[in-house]
């Protein structure tokens, strides 16, 4: 089977960690590297968490490169309310010996793209700072990018506010650069990711695996569940970032819709909103995104459990 070459750009993060668990055990993917960015937590913490996850789950072979610590223009925000002070909720991992690459994230991605004969898929699950600076600095490399499968935005809802999703709100100008770049985008936004739910029953199944991945995921989800209970009064948590990986490994589980997606950087009330034009009578030749709209929830949860089983 031909593996899909990917670079995953993360702000680990509870759901980033689960996305990495899925990706690192997926036969379908050839992970060329993982790059980090500030988002859910500061760059120090997201990089620390990424190194810890990669080493603890036996994939020290994958290079990890540290990216930017601040958004392009706006003041920094982080999501400690959703991911805790460490970024991984109450889950604690042994401190990895593995170090980040000497190259920064953008230099690392540049090198991989330049040296690759095949096109590579970028999978950002955090703010788009690294990807925007890559596209601004080395526009010729767009040709080497197969597509960008990202977690961010929402055609019909926000989470940080009524219209803005956290990853986009954390660096709207970067998102604007990426969405306007001409590179094809798969937008795994809140429209689909809020349907990618892990329930307390699933967590019981993870614990029953009685292995380190199941225990880690269950512990991380506990913090997440509590946050969702408080914020939305629901019993279940959305594993947003993992949807990007499932889109690549099991596209049949996700329903997408083509649209023209832009990121507002001017609005008084809709700043950082992703505006997706689906209207059929408009010029469809400008469509730049496939927007995730639905997912097979049960199959998704089973994939998470099966992935943990492999460790």
């Amino acid at each position, binding site marked *: 089977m031909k593996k899909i070459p990917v670079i995953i750009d993360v702000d680990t993060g509870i759901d980033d960690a689960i996305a990495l668990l899925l990706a690192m055990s997926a036969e379908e993917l050839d992970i060329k590297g993982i790059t980090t960015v500030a988002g859910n937590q500061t760059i120090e913490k997201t990089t620390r968490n990424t190194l810890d996850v990669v080493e603890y789950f036996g994939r020290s072979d994958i290079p990890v490169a540290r990216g930017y610590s*601040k958004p*392009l*223009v706006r003041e920094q925000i982080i999501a400690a309310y959703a991911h805790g002070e460490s970024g991984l909720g109450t889950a604690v991992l042994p401190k990895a010996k593995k170090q980040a690459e000497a190259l920064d994230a*953008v230099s690392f991605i540049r090198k991989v793209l330049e040296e690759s004969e095949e096109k590579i898929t970028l999978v950002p699950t955090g703010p788009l700072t690294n990807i925007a*600076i890559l596209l*601004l*600095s*080395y*526009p010729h490399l767009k040709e080497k990018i197969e597509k960008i499968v990202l977690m961010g935005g929402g055609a019909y809802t926000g989470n940080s506010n009524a219209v803005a999703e956290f990853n986009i709100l954390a660096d709207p*100008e970067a998102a*604007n*650069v990426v969405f*306007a770049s001409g590179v094809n985008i798969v937008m795994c936004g809140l429209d689909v990711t809020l349907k990618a739910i892990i329930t307390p029953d699933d967590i019981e199944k993870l614990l029953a695996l009685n292995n380190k991945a199941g225990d880690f995921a269950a512990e991380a989800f506990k913090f997440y569940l509590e946050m969702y209970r408080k914020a939305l009064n629901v019993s279940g948590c959305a594993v947003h970032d993992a949807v990007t990986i499932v889109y690549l490994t099991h596209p049949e589980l996700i329903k997408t819709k083509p649209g023209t997606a832009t990121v507002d*950087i*001017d609005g008084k009330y809709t700043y950082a909103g992703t505006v997706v034009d689906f209207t059929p009578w408009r010029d469809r030749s400008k469509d730049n995104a496939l927007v995730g709209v639905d997912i097979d929830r049960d199959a998704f949860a089973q994939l998470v459990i099966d992935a943990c089983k492999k460790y």
Partner: protein
Amino acid sequence: MLKRPVIIDTDPGVDDTIAIMLANAHPELDIKAITPVTGNVPYKYTSENALRLVKYLEMDCPVTNGAVNPLFIKCEDAGSVHGKGGLGGYELPPSDKTFEGYAWDIIKEEAIKADGELEIITLGPLTNIAITLLRYPEIKPLIKRIVCMGGSQYDGNVTPKAEFNFWVDPDAVDIVFRSGVPIVMCGLDSTEHAYLTIDELKALQGRDTKVKELFDHIMSFMIGRREAATEDDKLQTIYDAITIAYVLDPSIGKTEKHSVLVETKGINKGWTIIDRRNRAGNPLNVEVLTWADRDKFKAMLEEMLEYYKN
């Protein structure tokens, strides 16, 4: 002689061309690279003009690749002001040089090499410099200063409040002005003190120099535009050249340090808001040129023509 390492970031452009001629006539400026950017005319012209100009002036420095578009907004140019192709219709002979690397990568290298002494002179929109500061934030302390032609103290040109270079990419200006790197702003209505009359432009023509054809053509282009202009618009300012003149001889102008913000949105995008009261106590981030000495500037143009004399 102690040479000053500089980068010239430019969108040639008729006044850019005179500016680069002036800079090149002063060997104390060690021009490390010319970094073209979109602006006066579309990037394919500004970049090609830069490449050809470097050859024409027999300059020994690389011309890099630069930003084709502003950071976040659509590109708009000032074509009619600079004539066909950006040089008033003049076509420079092709160059055998090719573009080398990207502006931000070369600026970074030169900033490190110069160890705190590198000056960046910008004659166009600040897109390349903003990308440099985003890509390599660690070099900020190594940039001695950024001297830019752009903005205005009071009135704009492309809109009532905005000057063209800053209006093209206000987000880039915002990034540069908030970067903490020392800035000198040579704006519109301050450089305009160093205007030239139609007769003065004419008097500069016809000199027997190595650059006669190009220089005289640009003078004719400017004279033509001034002659066609309304009675209250007969004076010509060679904005970018005054910026270079200030770099060469700060006594040509007067400056004041102020807290300066740039509007990035709405009908006033590109307006450089000079907060003279500064009640908020914000950092005085920009040294604003408030006046320029037209006699000194004219003398520098004379000296320049002398330098290129056959």
